[in-house]
């Protein structure tokens, strides 16, 4: 008796159950990746919703994937890139990945946690998108070089180079801040 599970995913209750499972298991991954790409919570929320609607409509395609996580991250990336391309996004886009004024950051402040965490994340979010994306796919999502290369459709060498440049930029920023701290400390 064949109870091929995915065979039944094109209709009926199982499809809903799979959607539920996907959202419970990978919802946070999808949302975070969308946020890393766009730097905006509202956009990340919209993208995450779009991703799961698309996933639901294309569950049959999951059969050919080796894992739902990689598949969902791919959809997330494509959806985020579509957002970047849209005229609507270009028109309303705020410089969210650039330093925000303190008054603009109050809501995000609370959400991001402590001052130190905020400082690290703010620095990461200030990196150019391509560097930020590669770095976080490795450091936050735990993807291997090969997985990142496959997702971004670039060579592993390019991924390594981007991560190297991202690390260098982060270290440089922190080094500069440390020097500023030391200078301020010396004055007092």
């Amino acid at each position: 008796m064949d109870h091929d599970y995915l065979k039944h995913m094109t209709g009926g209750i199982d499809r809903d159950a799979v959607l539920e499972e996907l959202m419970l298991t990978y919802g946070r991954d999808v949302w975070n990746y969308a946020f890393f790409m766009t730097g905006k919570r509202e956009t990340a929320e919209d993208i995450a919703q779009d991703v799961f609607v698309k996933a639901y409509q294309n569950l049959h395609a999951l059969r050919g994937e080796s894992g739902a996580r990689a598949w969902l991250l791919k959809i997330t990336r494509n959806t985020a890139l579509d957002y970047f391309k849209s005229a609507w996004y270009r028109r309303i886009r705020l410089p969210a990945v650039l330093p925000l004024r303190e008054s603009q950051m109050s809501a995000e402040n609370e959400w991001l946690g402590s001052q130190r965490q905020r400082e690290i994340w703010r620095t990461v979010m200030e990196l150019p998108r391509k560097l930020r994306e590669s770095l976080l796919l490795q450091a936050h999502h735990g993807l291997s070089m090969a997985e990142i290369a496959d997702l971004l459709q670039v060579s592993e060498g390019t991924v390594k180079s981007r991560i190297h440049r991202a690390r260098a930029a982060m270290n440089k920023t922190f080094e500069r801040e440390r020097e500023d701290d030391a200078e301020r400390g010396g004055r007092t």
Partner: protein
Amino acid sequence: MRDHRDRWEDRLSDLPLGSGGFGTATMKKVKERIKMLERRAKRRRRAAAASVAALLIAGAVVFRSELAGLLTPEEAAKPVISETEPTTINVMYWDNSGFMSAFGQPFVIRHPSVRFEYADYPGKTANLFNLTPGIEPFKEQLLKSHADLVQVPLAYLPELSSAGLLKPLDTWMKRDGLKDGNWQPTVRATVREAGGGQLYGYAPEFSGYALFYNRKLFQENGVPEPTDGMSWDEAMDLAARFQGIEKGGKPVNGLSFGYNSTIWFEASIIGKSQGLRLADAKLGQATVDTPAWTDLWTKLAAGRRAGWINNDPVFKWEGNISMKELYAHDPFLNGRSAMTYASSAYLDTLSDAGSGLGLAQEDWGILAPPGDKASRGMDAAFEIPFVFAIPAQAAHADAAWELLKYIMSPSQANRYVRFPHGDALPTVAADAAASDTRSALFYRADADPSQVLDRTKRDANPVYGSVSSAVWTEASNRTQNAGGDELDVSELLQALQAKAEQALQAASAAGQAAAGGQP
């Protein structure tokens, strides 16, 4: 000087970024959008079914290459089981749809190329509480099946592993760098004991017992709080101190056992926690009318008569009844009982209903269960119902091992507590349990692995099962209308002893003890 900025990369992996980002509200919105899209699609289909069909056919012809591109699966990012070919895992589990919802479904979304087939679980009456059709039918079915992963009652694990019917798992564990350090220690020790020191299966769940107590009632009445691992005599003496106490015009009990408890049920679960049995190890002699059972029944009858053990009449109802209504009859949840002896499942009950019924979360505590004086602090009622094992003849053993690895994972434990089923806790503590001192009690519960195994084997023995059924049915019949006053313990135990002996003789006559008896 080094500071947090030197460790920035480590912090990226574990920062709670986005922890508030994706939650139930987003999930709800996704479902609403899908529903709306489907409604629209349905309307459109109704309005122009014929023309849509024609357009689809035409479109398929014109855009066949684009459609093919859309429908062609994207390339796999990381092959785990198979990148290109479907992998089939045959499972022998008592409930196919239950397996799918508890284990198969989350595994499939991680490994979409996996398909499941099912082998029939032996015994037509298998259910969650009766997974033991007898060792011989089980063995026969195991050999006949093409199962790659099997649900094996713990009682059968020693014989199946020593007969070479199951694959040892230690080599795989070592190869894949898996440790069993995060398993509940008694589960780990018992499963190894069942395999003669080797690992032949993974028990995904267990249940333990504890003494739950109402701090407020103890403080209000100047009674010292109970302590970890008391003997049953000590626990009952403490309960007796609540005799005659009232609260809000209603009597307060020292001890209770949930809603609709009966004296025979109480004797059964306390006897189990003291290691008392209904027949000797060889199943030749009934052991119901003994000093230990007499002492237990006498104390229960006295406690019920005096009211320090809850003696509310059994609540009868017709038709459907909500859990809320049933909970309303639990004296402990209502803040009317100082202590209750219950399984780990009671944690959920307290969390669901306690606060609503008058027992605030901060008002109750939990302790290692009372038991036999000789083994204080041990949980003699600790239970491990089954293990997952890989048959020696499994055709897809590697794939089954991948599935088993997932079943052992913390991800599955976290999922398990989100969708609890049955009374059990996951063997690997979920994240939520790590910070919860109350459920932590069960993750450090101690029991003698040999005793756990012996009891499990005894309970799985059909002869012992027939004795147990005869004794508790008779006990129920004889005590259902009797309060503590009318109960003649000596007469009752003589009658129960006679029933147990009849059951043993009947089994012996039927040749059960010889044929299918010993597991």
